[in-house]
């Protein structure tokens, strides 16, 4: 029994790595196979080796690097501003009973409109710069953070509210020391979701017309018939996204250490 458990636990640690490597290798093989069997023409899907070979090209392209910085700045700004606004609105809306229903109606109405459908309107209003990207992406990220904030506030332990009242804390102190920390695990989940959404929306705006950004550069390479460079760019974006995601999960665990003991 004990050895069995030990094996299982050992597999639990090595398992994800082995499976991950196996997954990547089989994907590369399948990719190579698709090209070799002529299922997809080379001009649409270059082989894995030519994509990997294009990595130096894209990494030394100043436009791509500047674009990446631009996209990252737009994403970061969106998540920062979106979090501040959504958390503040969420805390206020949750504090007053009469605001709760109207807030949910507004949230459910507006979040049903896909943000990418607003890109043309955004272009009309804000033009093709940073302002347009961030505005559209903001629209997309505030809803999930707002919903998670409201949900998180609702999970606040009522006894802790009583403690705060009996300690005679004012509204601000109650928000800062009880409500916000209680909602924090849920808010951080919302922010993690929002980062992914912001990245998707920012790159979409770039594909559909923004003047700068990785998306813009990828469109240019598509038009120049350099598919291997486009794929190399997509590969880099995927890797960056994966690294960002795991960094966020780790940061989240550090920020709310008490959750697993509560």
């Amino acid at each position, binding site marked *: 029994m004990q050895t069995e458990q030990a094996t299982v636990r050992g597999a639990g640690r090595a398992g994800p790595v082995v499976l991950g490597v196996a997954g990547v290798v089989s994907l590369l093989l399948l990719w190579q196979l698709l090209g070799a069997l002529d299922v997809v023409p080379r001009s649409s899907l270059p082989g894995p080796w030519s994509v990997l070979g294009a990595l130096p090209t894209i990494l030394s392209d100043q436009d791509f690097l500047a674009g990446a910085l631009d996209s990252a700045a737009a994403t970061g700004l969106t998540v920062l501003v979106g979090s501040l606004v959504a958390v503040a609105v969420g805390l206020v809306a949750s504090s007053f009973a009469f605001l709760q229903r109207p807030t949910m109606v507004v949230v459910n109405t507006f979040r049903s409109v896909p943000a990418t459908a607003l890109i043309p309107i955004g272009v009309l209003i804000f033009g093709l710069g940073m302002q347009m990207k961030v505005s559209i992406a903001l629209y997309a990220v505030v809803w999930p953070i707002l919903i998670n904030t409201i949900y998180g506030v609702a999970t606040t332990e009522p*006894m*802790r509210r009583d403690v705060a009242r*009996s300690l*005679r804390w004012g509204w601000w102190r109650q928000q800062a020391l009880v409500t916000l920390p209680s909602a*924090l695990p849920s808010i951080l989940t919302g922010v993690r979701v929002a980062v992914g959404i912001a990245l998707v929306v920012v790159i979409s705006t770039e594909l559909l017309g923004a003047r700068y950004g990785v998306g813009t550069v990828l469109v240019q390479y598509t038009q120049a018939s350099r598919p291997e460079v486009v794929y190399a760019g997509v590969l880099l974006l995927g890797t960056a996204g994966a690294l960002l995601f795991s960094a966020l999960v780790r940061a989240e665990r550090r920020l709310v*250490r008490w959750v697993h003991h*509560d």
Partner: protein
Amino acid sequence: MNVVVDRVRKSYGRGAEAREVLTETSLTVRSQEFVSIVGPSGCGKSTLLMMMAGLLKPSSGEIRLGDEPVTGPPAGLSVVFQDYSRSLFPWMSVRRNLTTALTASRLGKEEQRSRVEHALESVGLAGKGEMYPWQMSGGMQQRVAIARALVTEPTVMLMDEPFAAVDAQTRADLEDLVLRVRHEYDVTVAFVTHDIDESVYMADRIVVLAANPGRIAADLTVDLPRPRDQVETKLDARFAKLRSEVFRLVMRPDTPASA
């Protein structure tokens, strides 16, 4: 300071659906007194305590702390809640749990620090200020909750079944701890419990409540010598007599008192 419960009544709901939790009840907890409030579940003992704490509004009647009517949580009154795991703030260290309890008192930094250290020392947690509640055993966490109640140096401390969630040995330790700090801090205590032995062991006076609707069934004076001792006090014939008296009132309220 006296805590006066003056013709207080509490009911939930309205009209035909109204449920009376506590019928009109009057009670005075005198300054420096230790009063146990004991009764079966549903007798409104926690409701009564929460109204004394200013956390719950009576349906009618008035609570007074000294001469001041209680309309919200008053200064000089602390509450120890039933479940430490839900009443402490797990995102704060023990020291910060205590320091933030002092914010409404508006003390200087130095005074705050010395009060916090003193409170930690009083409950046997000196040097544990940097720990987080979730790193501690249940007994230690409830000590933190008691220290948080004492750090404001209250005149009145209300305790709502504070030891319901700890094991028997820890419970005995915590009972003696409360009896000790009560004198150290010169605090008036109202102590809600459903444990009959505990109600007798701790108190100067026992208020026994009956259920459906909640009301005072008896008000008994405990003439046991102090300091109390977990072994000696419980061997005392007076302890046994009081214990069975309270037991009868709580468990068999319809039988008449035996001589």
